[in-house]
């Protein structure tokens, strides 16, 4: 059954016309013990049909351990957005980006394709000084209207600096990880598993927390 109706398909294909380079959706699923893997894969198959510039690569997590490792995938389903040269830019979605989160997913595809909004100079300067590896986890629920904003900011930072890796984690699908980080309000942002804050805070707050890890 199609997940996208005609109206949404049309809106999205129009929007994807603005893509610059090609983008590959690397989708990691498991055959067993993964309730949402099938749905995630068919959702991505539908997204692929919306633009010639979007490609899908489906990986079985268990048989493609090497690929999973290369992209830092530990959960399933997981979707990694690869750029025109099929390189990992630090943009990852763990769990289905449905509900409100479809917005950060679409934005992610556009940005990985190179259709970027630029950051103010002052923030670019701060980003240049981030030289040690940073991982940003953004926990979300699909009914949360201000979660996509936080996910977009994290991914934006990852795209601007190769040392930063950012991932959305859909908290209900990955209850164990959410419990580990005591998630009870979203969006919750956790940096290098150590520094955290709640809410769709301004980009400067992300930078302040990231700077603590350097």
């Amino acid at each position, binding site marked *: 059954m199609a*997940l996208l109706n005609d109206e949404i398909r049309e809106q999205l294909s129009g*929007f994807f016309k603005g893509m610059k380079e090609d983008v590959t959706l690397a989708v990691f699923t498991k055959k067993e013990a993964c309730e949402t893997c099938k749905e995630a894969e068919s*959702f991505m198959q539908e997204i692929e049909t919306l633009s010639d510039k979007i490609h899908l690569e489906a990986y079985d997590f268990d048989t493609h351990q090497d690929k999973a490792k290369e992209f830092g995938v530990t959960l399933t389903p997981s979707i990694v957005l690869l750029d025109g040269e099929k390189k990992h830019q630090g943009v990852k979605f763990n769990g289905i980006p449905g509900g409100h989160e479809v917005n950060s997913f679409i934005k992610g595809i556009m940005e990985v394709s190179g259709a970027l909004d630029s950051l103010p100079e002052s923030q670019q300067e701060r980003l240049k000084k981030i030289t040690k590896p940073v991982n940003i986890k953004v926990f979300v629920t699909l009914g949360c209207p201000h979660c996509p904003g936080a996910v977009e900011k994290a991914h934006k930072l990852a795209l601007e600096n190769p040392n930063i890796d950012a991932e959305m984690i859909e908290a209900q699908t990955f209850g164990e990880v959410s419990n580990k980080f005591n998630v*009870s309000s979203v969006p919750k942002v956790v940096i290098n598993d150590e520094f955290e804050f709640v809410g769709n805070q301004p*980009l400067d707050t992300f930078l302040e927390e990231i700077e603590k890890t350097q």
Partner: protein
Amino acid sequence: MELNLDITEGPKVHLKKEVLYDTLVIGGGPAGLNTALYAKRKGLNVGVITERLGGQVMDTSTVENYLGYESMTGEGLVNKFIGHVQNLQVPILKEVRVEKLDKDGDIHQVHLKNGEVYQSRTLVLATGSKPRKLGIPGEKEFSGKGVAYCAICDGPFFEGLDVVIAGGGNTAVESAIDLAKIAARVDLVHRSQFRADQVLIDQLKNYDNIHIHLDTQMQEIMGEAMVNGIKVLDRNTGEESIMNTNGIFVEIGYLPNSDAFKEYVQINDRREIIVDAFGRTNVDGVFAAGDITTIPYKQIITSAGDGAKVALAVNDYLNTHARIEAPQKVVAK
């Protein structure tokens, strides 16, 4: 699977630092968006600067009191507002925070937290409000650890658990109903009597897991790693007791977002910007609209209506005041 798509297309127009605007609207909720709509249609050069486009309406699950729409998701309604304004090619700068206002001669300057500065002949302040906090011990400590301010966002974490809702207005009652479908038990606690609409209060009866405690004051939030209880005072009997709970949703009203402006315009002790019937503040050329103002009652339709009125007042102001020309240093590039 449900998708709440919210991409706003249309030709993108950008806000420019070198332009002297007729009016800059700060805040992208219903008040700010309707100000922009009316100002643009009056032929003014207008721009919008906002943190979260859509404002509080984005956090509302359903709206049932906006004329013409019997029932609509908050997001669906506000996306219509945004689309309408964007189709008129009004530049909207979003996800930025205004930190300070000041003046260079007759020109108002808007300073953003990221260091950028924009200039305008007039300003409309429409930054709305944010959830009010309880201000009791434990609230800050357990914020995000069981203390929550957005029921539609954080409700799913309390599936099968017990929650307390603080408040007696529409938002609190709506949250109680939403959460009753997820949580095992919902305790609705309010320090006085209900302020909510009777149609909503009547719905509470349909849920036998909702328990109502009026005239009950919350005193302290308790817990270890996460919230595990709340200390309350029954104001009729004077008795203190502890309610065990896994989460507390605070829905006790809203506080105006006027911090960035308090040194520029006059505000009252409730932190509302003081305005007259035309939305004028005490500073010449600076107006305010919506939840942020002293105008009573804070609703989507009243804020939107206020925005329309203020845009017209701005237009009159610009028509009757000698046109300020951009100084040389602004136009020179």
